[in-house]
């Protein structure tokens, strides 16, 4: 592997100064980046270790939401009492990912910036538009069982691997960052860029920007939320389909619903169409299925990933039905 420099930083200005080098990468837990360096997929000249930055707190915001620092570990995030109480789907999503050891290392900021696990992306001997723009996407005609059914393009059909981001998408999280020119923020819905013909450009973060944290706005509906993840073994695998769902039902009618899908697109997929169809309507399995179908009508399947449509639809129906039944009790 390429020889690289390593710089530990203790405050944000220092981090930004070192991070300005286009060949520098911020190092959080290293649970993804270091693998990519070993396989030659990423070849940074400098690692700027941000783990000692004072960004490891989880605090309530004045408006009743939560602010989560970028270097909070996945383990601490999932264990935090306020996260578990107010946004249980977020805690469940984080716990559904990786292993205990990895969650102890992985950070919130790094989790947002995970790279896809597409087998062509991670193999530097293969073409990949995400890795080498213009080299082609072999997955479309090749192995794509776990590739995107929504929002993909002819240039890339990879899916985002993060479970955490799916729950964040459901709860309208906002990503905060710092640059040399000052702070900025991006709603999660705008954080990940559409694939289009630039699959190598994954986020709207400015060059050299450092994620400092995320905020979750208050969302009472999130208190009755859950996350379900289906994968090809019981643990320690990326999702082949996942759903974050929250439901508020009064008198048999949907007052508010949140739905986000994982492992179906290059970004966590907020199912706004399904939410729109459901809101104000009956909380019945039939309505849930119709809503899922509405959202998934846009699905463009490849020969080996069409099962995902049925999988996500079934998950939506099962989870919303369960939430509705619990609300009725």
């Amino acid at each position, binding site marked *: *592997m*390429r020889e690289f420099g390593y710089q530990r930083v203790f405050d944000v200005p220092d981090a930004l100064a070192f991070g300005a080098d286009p060949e520098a990468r911020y190092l959080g837990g290293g649970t993804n980046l270091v693998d990519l360096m070993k396989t030659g997929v990423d070849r940074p000249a400098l690692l700027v270790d941000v783990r000692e930055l004072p960004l490891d707190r989880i605090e309530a915001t004045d408006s009743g939401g939560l602010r989560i620092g970028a270097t909070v570990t996945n383990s601490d995030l999932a264990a935090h009492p306020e996260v578990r109480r107010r946004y249980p789907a977020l805690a469940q999503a984080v716990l559904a990912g990786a292993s205990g050891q990895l969650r102890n290392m992985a950070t919130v900021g790094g989790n947002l910036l995970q790279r896809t696990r597409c087998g062509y992306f991670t193999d530097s*001997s293969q073409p990949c538009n995400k890795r080498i723009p213009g080299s082609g996407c*072999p997955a479309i005609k090749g192995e794509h069982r776990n590739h995107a059914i929504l929002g993909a393009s002819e240039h890339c059909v990879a899916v985002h691997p993060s479970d955490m981001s799916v729950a964040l998408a459901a709860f309208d999280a906002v990503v905060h960052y710092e640059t040399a020119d000052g702070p900025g923020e991006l709603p999660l819905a705008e954080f990940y860029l559409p694939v289009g013909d630039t699959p190598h450009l994954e986020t709207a973060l400015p060059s050299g920007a450092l994620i400092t944290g995320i905020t979750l706005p208050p969302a009472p509906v999130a208190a009755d939320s859950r996350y*379900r993840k289906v994968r090809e073994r*019981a643990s320690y695998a990326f999702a082949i389909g996942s759903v974050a769902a929250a439901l508020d039902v009064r008198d048999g009618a949907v007052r508010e619903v949140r739905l986000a899908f994982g492992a179906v697109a290059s970004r966590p997929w907020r199912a706004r169409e399904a939410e729109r169809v459901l809101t104000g309507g009956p909380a019945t399995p039939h309505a849930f299925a119709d809503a899922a179908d509405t959202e998934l009508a846009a699905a463009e399947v490849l020969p080996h990933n069409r*099962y995902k449509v049925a999988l996500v639809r079934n998950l939506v129906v099962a989870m919303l039905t369960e939430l509705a039944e619990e609300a009725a009790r």
Partner: protein
Amino acid sequence: MTTMTGTTATAAAVGTGHTRVEGRAKVTGAARYAGEIPFAELAHGWLVLSTIARGRIRSVESGPVMSMPGILAVLHHGNAPRVTTDYTGLLGRPDPTVAVFQHDRVPCAGWPVALVVAETSEQAREAAAALVVRYDDEPHDVAFSAGRPGTYTPESSPRLQAETRKGDVEAELAASAVVVDAEYTTPEEHHTSLEPHAAMAHWDGGRLEVVDSNQGSRWVAEDLAQLFSLDPASVRVRSEHVGGAFGSKGVRPHQVCAVMAATVLHRPVRVVLTRRQMFSLVGYRSPTAQRVRLGADADGRLRAVDHQAQNLTSTVHEFVERSAAYGRVMYDADAHHTVDRVVALDVPTPTWMRAPGEAPGSFALESALDELAEKCGMDPIALRERNEPDRGPVSGLPFSSRNLLACFREGARRFGWADRDPRPGLRREGRWLLGTGTAAATFPSGVAPSTAAVTAEADGTFTVRITAADVGTGARTALTLIAADALHVAPEHIRMRIADSDFGQAMVAGGSMGTRSWAWAITTAAGELRERLALGGGIPPEGITVRSDTTEAVGALAMRERHSFGAQFAEVAVDVSSGEVRVRRMLGIFAAGRIVNPLTARSQFIGGMTWGLSMALHEEAVRDQASGALVGADLAGYHFAANADVPLIEADWVDDTDNDDPIGIKGIGEIGIVGAAAAIANAVWHATGVRHRHLPIRPDRVLLAVGGTGGAG
């Protein structure tokens, strides 16, 4: 000077549980593996593999790389030492894949095209990544499918028959009241031993020394001697600790590369494979496509068994996955036909992988038996009882011992089989459908000639020297117990030295034959030593050593069908709305001869059953047709069962004595896998009413099979 008095053990060591003699060293990290043993002046080699699947190397542009920091050499077909593959080794003709850098042909993706050697492994790795290799690409063909053009029946040898026939299968099928005709497939599977392959080679005063991780040091030494045209006595290979092998750790390109580089550079060179390289270089289990036809009378008596299996091999070497051989010992029928066919494609050569043949073959045949039981309206165990042979169904030879039905009886009792409602798709628990399944298992009980030396030391202890290999199974411990009993001393008095080719010829750790073969040699030497010691007199300072060679005794063994047997049981939960399958419990009861160390034996059975679970639900390597290479060739892409997938697994055994056999051990390394995947697939049918004939039983397959008729694709 000492005598035997006072060291006589009061209790037999064999048959009682003993922790591994090297266990403390392993869990404290004191045990060193081939990739981490320090050597002075060690240089590091890094392999460069082809990125095309077929063609020729036009150029290896080593010039720019040679000027990179620390680079010592770039070996390739233009400058590497010559080797010969014109020999027959212990286990047959060598796979030309090990003859690295001998020509410019590239027969598959992941073929070794160069070795970069540097002062550090990081420097070698970086230069290997930078090395430009130019190719003349040719069209490749890696598409494996049943009956595809190019499929042929390989030549049989006396030991390994590709095809067997008895009676008229077509006539018996036509006369059968009930017929099953189904196709089954299993995917490409990889050993992925925890410890990657690693070897260090250096020349020491005209002797080639290799520190390796293998399953037969003498085997590797003799092959290296042949490859490099050396006097076998001038090659020494050691392999003290091995972190898993499963058939993949024989002679492989890394040892050959290390010897080449050590020869060229006159200094020690180590070559370690990466996980990704292992997927190309150390063999794998071929995918199989199998058709099984069973014909039976209405009462389940088999009239016809037809098992036609197909696997792939490379264009440079023929390896046959003998899936169809499984049925030749299992079930009697009036007519019997079994054949293993093969097709050569532009892929790496497959090899033995734990339970070669039996693992995929049992999935097909034991699934088909379950389908037949369903069609006959019979209990699956009763069907197997009805077709229990009293002699080898094809060979006509008597069984040395066959306790399959005892396994089923004990298993059924412990699993609660009698309470089972045979109808599928009836049991629900929340979102889960529940089902149970069973399957039989068998594995050959072979033995091969071995030598051993046992020394009575002057201090009253004993030293055993044998070129055995402990690939993580506990062989070192088992042999210690064997030696202790043979010498009538406690195990603490035995010093067991293994895995050094200088100790002489011995069977490899493979084919479930290691412990049986080695124990025979140790027992023989120990017996003679005891006779010598019984004559009285003291022990001189250099000790008294007796050597044994079991060649004659093994050759005199009567012709019998010698096999272990087993019965597998599984309970599964299936969520057909998500496609998830969870195994809730497994039970395996085995008849596998004398069990030497119950503690590690249970581990091996459970490990095998876990492997079978993994085969049923998870394992699958996917080859990209366009590039000819694997996609996701790492442990993120190649899934095997994680801890959360592995439920309560019980393994136990029934008495299986064989008075005809002087050693009584049958070998337990592989049978735990056999039938396990079929038991799980049969349980999935019982849960859902859908037959899954293609492994692994992935969520997408379960999902898409909902509402399907019978089979799932």
